[in-house]
């Protein structure tokens, strides 16, 4: 099992993609300015529409386990970046940097370029080609 590491500020420029997510809903419910590092075990990798999900079991400080619901881009967007439904599987141990839900509930958004296997293996380079969707850039 993994643990939640730290709250961090937005680190540098993230690779942005075209805003496919804004086709469905706003990314603004996720706090990209205050991203969180998570370590955990994949309970399920749901390669579904309109968003893929990684359900990640994360160990809390008190030793209990909390399941995070981590939303990604659509299968169509990921496939075109080299992903498939088999890229991740239950039992994979991951280190991720995610944009958490502003509410504080165990949910957030992930991007392919911010995931590593916990044992140091890297994902295929093609899977690093996309980051968070460039969908929150509404002019204020």
């Amino acid at each position: 099992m993994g643990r939640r590491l730290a709250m961090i500020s937005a680190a540098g420029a993230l690779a942005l993609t075209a805003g496919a997510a804004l086709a469905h809903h706003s990314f603004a419910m996720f706090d990209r300015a205050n991203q969180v590092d998570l370590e955990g075990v994949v309970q399920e990798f749901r390669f579904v529409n309109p968003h893929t999900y990684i359900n990640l079991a994360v160990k809390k400080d008190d030793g209990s386990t909390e399941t995070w619901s981590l939303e990604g881009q659509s299968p169509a967007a990921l496939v075109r970046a080299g992903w498939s439904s088999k890229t991740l599987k239950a039992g994979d141990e991951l280190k991720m940097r995610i944009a958490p839900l502003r509410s504080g509930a165990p949910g957030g958004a992930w991007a392919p370029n911010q995931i590593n296997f916990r044992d140091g293996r890297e994902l295929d380079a093609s899977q690093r080609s996309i980051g968070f969707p460039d969908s929150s850039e509404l002019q204020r």
Partner: protein
Amino acid sequence: MTRRHLIAPLALSVMLLALLTSATSGARAQDGKQDNGKYPDWTGQWFRTGGVQFDPTKPLGRGQEAPLTPEYQAKLEASIADIAAGGHGLNEHTSCLPHGMPRMMNAVYPIEFVVLPKTTYILFDENLPRRIYTDGRNWPAEPEPAFAGYSIGHWVDEAGDGRFNVLEVETRYMKGPRTFEGSGLPLHEDNETVIKERIFLDKEKPDLLHDEITTSDHALTRPWTVTKTYRRERNAVWIPNECGEDNRHVTIGKEDYMISPDGLLMPVKKDQPPPDLRYFRSKK
């Protein structure tokens, strides 16, 4: 009459027929009985160029500089504010409501054109198809409205070379709510939108397709024209995007929530209250 004597009048007939059918530039096809060789090659998979905003040359939301009435500008501002706070604003597609016209031509995911003499179909990965009727029909009296509306088109041969190059389309009878894009940039709730399009290949680069869209709507102070461009991919890979498959975003009343992996509601905004449970009877 001998064969030799038939040749001259036959040749004259053929010549006259050719003159009649080629006519002048701008000839329109209305009878639907056209040779398929007269239609442009719009085969393949068409990807949007630029982002998912309505006018691809400008930023989302306020940056679109849409000619909105003051009332609808205020609605846009409120939508942007709600989205910034984690809500969905006027973007009802969050709950998988169809994009409708003209937003579906933003082509978030690639599109395909199927050109037949009487109908041109536009296929989408995440919307029902559009049908553009080119069989010369008149507007129906009172059709049921649809998010994509009802479209009638006419092929135009601008060069007069016997080959159509422009599809002019008019779309009416839409239902709502509809927005131009995910910022919630709104169309009027009266749904009296009229959309006119000119769809044509780029003259210099035939793997670019342009859709010049003019929207007339009561949310606007004037007709608003935006040109979209799609690039062709010959080796198509289609990946369906059925929004209803596993949508974990829920709207209850005016509030948005997410569904957790264990099937329970989660808040998305800070200090967000739970939904109103007045219709549930608590067990004692």
